């Protein structure tokens, strides 16, 4: 159903126009570059402080697929997934919400042939651009520090893109439900909880059983597992399950966001 909907209604040109608007906004607003830059440094700082710093105290860590790696090698792919997540989320939450609710940008766009789903796709593409800038740069850092092989980096990059799309879709969906800026505190808290407890800093199998079960349904866990499996060079069929989770997340978020744009702005 979704594919027919996509095929019948989506014009690549119009999705491109929505994406192009964001590129144009980038040229005009210099402050945006600072925001962009800070988003890249955050996971790098965590990698250095915890992965490398705390890692010196921890020593080696056994991977589920066998083999012992440095703690930093274990943490780095998780930080990669986190940077993909935060890149996509910052674009699809704060910026998306502002365009939808305050600057009435989407309202103006909806007076043209562009449809709600095309807005959502255009915004998601832009979020993906931002997310991939972060993850691309982060992978360069990882290879430079010897935390993954170039082959591992090439394999992890598309996975990181998928993580960006998944969180971008859900970010838009959440934004359409936001009542005001105060709701973003909740989002930030949720995002931080995911950051801490998604098998990022310690293997999930070391968590209490209940918590392990809870974590297994949260999104960043699947993102981390997928990216880590590829970055450390231990691909397996299990990764497909994680990838499928992220695909469902992306599509559901996208369709929900498009519906909400329609319901809220086309009344």
């Amino acid at each position, binding site marked *: 159903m979704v594919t027919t909907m996509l095929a019948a209604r989506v014009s690549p040109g119009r999705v491109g126009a929505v994406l192009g608007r964001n590129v144009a*906004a980038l040229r005009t607003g210099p402050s945006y570059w600072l925001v962009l830059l800070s988003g890249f440094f955050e996971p790098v700082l965590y990698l250095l402080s915890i992965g490398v710093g705390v890692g010196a105290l921890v020593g080696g860590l056994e991977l589920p697929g066998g083999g012992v790696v440095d703690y930093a090698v274990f943490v780095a792919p998780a930080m990669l997934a986190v940077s993909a997540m935060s890149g996509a989320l910052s674009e699809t939450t704060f910026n998306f919400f502002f365009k939808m609710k305050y600057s009435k940008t989407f309202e103006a766009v909806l007076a043209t042939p562009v449809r709600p789903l095309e807005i959502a796709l255009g915004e998601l593409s832009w979020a993906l651009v931002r997310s991939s800038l972060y993850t691309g740069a982060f992978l360069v850092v990882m290879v430079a520090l010897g935390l993954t092989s170039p082959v591992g980096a090439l394999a992890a990059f598309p996975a990181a893109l998928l993580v960006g799309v998944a969180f971008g879709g859900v970010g838009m969906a959440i934004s359409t439900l936001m009542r005001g800026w105060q709701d973003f505190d909740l989002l930030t808290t949720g995002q931080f909880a995911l950051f801490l407890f998604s098998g990022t800093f310690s293997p999930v199998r070391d968590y209490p059983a209940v918590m392990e079960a809870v974590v297994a349904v949260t999104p960043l866990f699947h993102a981390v597992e997928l990216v880590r499996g590829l970055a450390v060079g231990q691909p397996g069929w299990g990764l497909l399950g994680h990838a499928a989770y992220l695909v469902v997340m992306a599509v559901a978020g996208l369709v929900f966001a498009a519906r909400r744009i329609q319901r809220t702005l*086309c009344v």
Partner: protein
Amino acid sequence: MRAEGARAGSGPGGVKPFAELSQASVTVAGVSEQPLIYARGLVKRFGDFTAVDGIDLDVAAGEAFGFLGPNGAGKSSTMRMISCVSMPTSGELRILGMDPVRDGSRIRGRLGVCPQLDNLDPDLSVRENLTTYARYFGLSRAEARRRTEELLDFAQLREKASGAVEPLSGGMKRRLTIARALVNDPDLVLLDEPTTGLDPQARHLLWERLFRLKQRGTTLVLTTHYMDEAEQLCDRLVVMDGGRIVAQGSPRSLIETYSTPEVVELRFPDEADYAGKLEGIGRVDPLPDRILLYAEDGDAAVAEVHRRGLAPSSVLVRRSSLEDVFLQLTGRTLVD
């Protein structure tokens, strides 16, 4: 629908250069049979509230058509349905011969919409607001740029082109919004209260621009609660109140039907019942602050007022306006 002949002269992407607009559109107006807007029993409800309560409309190509009415009359809801953003609750609606539910995107591609509140993009420059918007309509980059340069002149915003939108005055923002609505060379331009909130000078400049569009043969549909605006710009208008159309016709014919050629406005220094004493001179309409006297001949009516020994503190004889029509139809003044 636009006639084939007019399309033949189109540039790439079906968009004509602005300068050629006049000729082509006049041809369209001449040969068009189908109304650009056709509505029967159009209803829009929001929950229990009925904003538009069963209206019929026919707007032909080349017309300048107005919705006149106070706030809450249902004008904007009607405009949003015509602009294919909001779907009718019930009734029949055809825009450019197409069904908004099925062909919304295609129809919107041929409309130009100037909303009541400016929704220009604050993250883009004046020029980028136009080029970006053109891209939503599928114009090529080159076309978008060419069209933008033409419209910057039309909107008299050339000096501001590279600057941000935020520092522009209200009048400039409005002109930019209207220019943006013209970026796709629309068959039908919808303007929701185009001059509300502007100072008189800005209003007159805007009227002059809109009049120019009208002369070029562009079909204009606008809402307003200013009578002078409706009289200046509209060939035909409907008066809306409480979601219904209470009268329609040309401004002149509405005035002739619902009012007298002249109106005398009388103010008295005290609160005594003067309305009774004016009986017989013409139709009397007592308002809280003044009394209106509808007369064939204003000066003769004033003479009669004085002959009856009444001493109003101020007397104004004026031509009848749409305000009087509205007052007659709804029993209250229009500006609220």
